[in-house]
C-alpha cells in the first residue's frame, strides 16, 4: 500500500494559486492549523476558501486572510474576524475579499451533497429572505423550499484526532464539525491529525471518515486552544 504520510509542506505542495479549498472546523476548533501554517509558508494566492467561519485573526483561516491569500470566502459567519470587513471594503483590488454567506445548515448539506453525488436538495431555510435571491423555489406538499446546489472543492484540509495509516479518521469532541463532509467533497484530501496509529487500531464501528477519502496524512496537529 502507498505510504500516505508526508510533512505538512510536502502535503500542501500540490496546491496552486487559484485553488478552491475546504477547511474543516468551527471557530478553528477542528481546523488543521499545521496545514494552514504550511499554506501560509507556500503563500499561494487567489484562493477560494470554504469554511464555516472566518475564525479570528491569527487562528485557522484567519491566518490566510491576514496573509492576503483569500480571494473568495464561502462561510456562514465572519463577524468575529474584523479583517473580513476591512478586506471586503478595501480599494486595493489585490487585497479585496469577496465573501459569500451561506446558512450554516445549508452549507453543511451542500458539502454533503457534493460528496454524495446529489444534484441538490430542497431546504426550507432561507425562504423569503435574501438567501433565496436567484434560487429556484419549489413547492412540495404545500410548503416552499429553496433548491440548493452541491458544493465541491479542489482540496479539503481536514483535522483528525486519531488517523490510521490508511487514513481512517476519528474526531474527538466538537472537532468533528464540517470535517467528515469535506473529506468526501474534494478531489484531494489532506488530513492533519493529532495521532497516527497502525491500521487496525481503530474499531471499524468507530471510524468516522474512511481512509478511501484521504490522500495524504500529516501528523503533529496540536490541541485547539482558545
Amino acid at each position: 500500500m502507498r505510504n500516505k504520510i508526508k510533512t505538512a509542506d510536502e502535503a500542501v505542495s500540490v496546491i496552486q494559486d487559484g485553488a478552491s479549498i475546504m477547511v474543516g472546523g468551527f471557530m478553528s476548533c477542528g481546523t488543521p492549523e499545521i496545514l494552514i501554517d504550511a499554506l501560509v509558508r507556500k503563500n499561494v494566492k487567489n484562493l477560494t476558501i470554504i469554511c464555516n467561519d472566518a475564525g479570528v485573526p491569527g487562528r485557522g483561516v484567519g491566518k490566510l486572510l491576514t496573509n492576503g491569500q483569500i480571494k473568495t470566502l464561502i462561510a456562514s459567519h465572519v463577524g468575529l474576524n474584523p479583517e473580513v470587513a476591512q478586506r471586503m471594503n478595501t480599494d486595493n483590488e489585490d487585497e479585496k475579499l469577496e465573501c459569500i454567506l451561506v446558512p450554516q445548515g445549508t452549507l453543511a448539506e451542500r458539502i454533503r451533497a457534493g460528496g454524495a453525488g446529489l444534484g441538490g436538495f430542497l431546504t426550507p431555510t432561507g425562504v423569503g429572505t435574501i438567501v433565496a435571491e436567484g434560487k429556484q423555489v419549489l413547492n412540495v406538499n404545500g410548503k416552499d423550499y429553496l433548491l440548493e446546489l452541491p458544493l465541491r472543492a479542489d482540496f479539503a484540509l481536514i483535522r483528525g484526532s486519531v488517523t490510521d495509516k490508511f487514513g481512517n479518521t476519528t474526531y474527538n469532541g466538537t472537532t468533528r464539525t464540517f470535517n467528515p463532509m469535506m473529506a468526501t467533497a474534494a478531489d484531494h484530501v489532506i488530513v492533519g491529525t493529532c495521532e497516527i496509529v497502525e491500521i487496525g487500531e481503530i474499531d471499524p464501528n468507530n471510524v468516522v471518515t474512511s481512509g478511501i477519502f484521504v490522500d495524504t496524512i500529516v501528523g503533529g496537529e496540536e490541541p485547539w486552544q482558545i
Partner: protein
Amino acid sequence: MADLRDFIAKRVAKELRDGDVVNLGIGLPTLVANHLPEGVNIVLQSENGIMGMGPAAEPGKEDVDIINAGAAYVTVNPGAMFFDSATSFGIIRGGHVDATVLGALQVDKHGNLANWIIPGKMVPGMGGAMDLVVGAKKVIIAMLHTQKGNHKILDECTLPYTAINVVDMIVTEMGVMEVTPEGIVLTEINPEYTVDQVKEATGCELIISPDLKDMI
C-alpha cells in the same frame, strides 16, 4: 441591565418542559439554563456538534476539544453525543429541537424575524440562525422590548428577514407576547409597567389577552 436580562431569561425558562431539546443563542438566551424550574432537566443542543451540553468548563479543567457555538470551553453531561455539522442541522431542520431561544433586532406581527443584519454595520453572517428558527418546534425571542427607545416589535420588519412566519413567542422585560394569526397578543405583563406603556413601546397593534396575567 444584568437584572433585566436575568428577569427575561427566568421567564423564558418557564416555557421549557422536562426532557425538552433546546438550543440557546449566545448572550441573554444562554442565561435561560441558569433559571430552569425545579425538576425540569433539558437537553441542550449546540449546533457545532453536541447533544447534551453541560455548563461552562471550570478554569483549568477545560477539554480543549470541546467548545460551544460561542467558542467557549464547555462540558458535556452523561449521555451526551458529538456529531458533525450536517447531522447537527439535520436535527435542527428536522424539527427535533423542541425550542430555540434567540435575540432579535425586529419581530413583526406575522412572526417574521430580523436578527442578522444591522443597518450600517458589517454583515456578520447568519451562522445557524436561519436554520434554527425554521426548524425548531418553538421559537422564543428573548430581548429588551425596545432598542434605545426605538420599536423592535413592528407591523412589518424593515430589516432583512432571518426567516418568515417563525416566531411563536416574545419575552421582554415588559411582558410575554404570543404571535397568533390575529396578531401579537400580550398574555402577561410585568407589573412594573402599565398596559399603555407596553402598547406605546410596541410598534404594532397589541392585542391584550382577556386573560392577562402578571409576569412573574
